[in-house]
């Protein structure tokens, strides 16, 4: 379909939908073809994309990643990570690790709720 015609039909669809959740059926006067467009679903896809962008987006790393292989423990130490924390975590069982995270997430949620006026 030529773009100008598709544009005209899209305009018709948006006018006809009027914010309703129902699919819109439009037909061209010059042609026996009819199109049904689910405007609400298209807008819902935009909402999903917006949520994803706001939740997950972070600037991308610039430059090439380092290819030189170094001892990861030394790299972590130099970066300033607390290795004793990792070693302590490794001594815990997966269940203990998950429950610790659960407790922290719960604490954070309650603290945020308490901060709200």
């Amino acid at each position, binding site marked *: 379909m030529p773009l100008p015609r598709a544009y005209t039909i899209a305009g018709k669809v948006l006018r006809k939908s009027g914010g309703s959740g129902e699919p819109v059926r439009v037909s061209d006067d010059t042609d026996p073809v009819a199109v049904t467009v689910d405007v*609400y*679903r298209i*807008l*819902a*896809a*935009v*909402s*999903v994309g*917006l*949520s*994803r962008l*706001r*939740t*997950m987006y*972070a*600037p*991308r*790393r*610039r430059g090439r*990643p380092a290819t030189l292989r170094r*001892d*990861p*423990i030394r*790299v*972590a130490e130099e*970066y300033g*990570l*607390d*290795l004793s*924390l*990792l*070693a302590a*975590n*490794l001594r*815990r069982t*997966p*269940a203990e*690790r*998950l*429950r*610790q*995270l*659960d407790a*922290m*997430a*719960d604490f*954070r*949620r309650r603290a945020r709720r308490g901060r709200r006026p």
Partner: protein
Amino acid sequence: MFERIIAALLAAGARFVVVGGVAATIQGSARLTNDLDICYDPAPDNLETLVRLLRGWHAYLREVKPGLPFTLDVRALRTTPVMTLTTELGDINLLDQVLGVGGYADVLAASEPVRIDAIEFRALTLPALISAKKATGRAKDREHVIELEALLALRRRG
């Protein structure tokens, strides 16, 4: 919260693998996360199970104003690679694939069983988590990659 969501997913018979921050915690990471990331089996029956559960938990999109158009059904899940939701039980991200690992079958192959009391589920392994974090190419994931690689080295040292 996370344990409760995982248990509810399992009880409903959903097929999924825990990925992301919660999987990293299970593997020993010390970083905090607020949401549960799962990679799900895209088979129609599994999508139906997930949709039923999420509707029951009044799932809605995260970080957007209430009232925006949103449809949570099998078709929406099938056509959306990533859905970031907030529910009554907590925040959950649904992924149909994991960058750097692949689709559900690849993710399943790169996972290992985790047992917590009576429940058993699968979570991504450390090497797979490292691949996934590297593949995103996000600057903020660099520190996480350093941590995960150190964890892997510590674990191999025993």
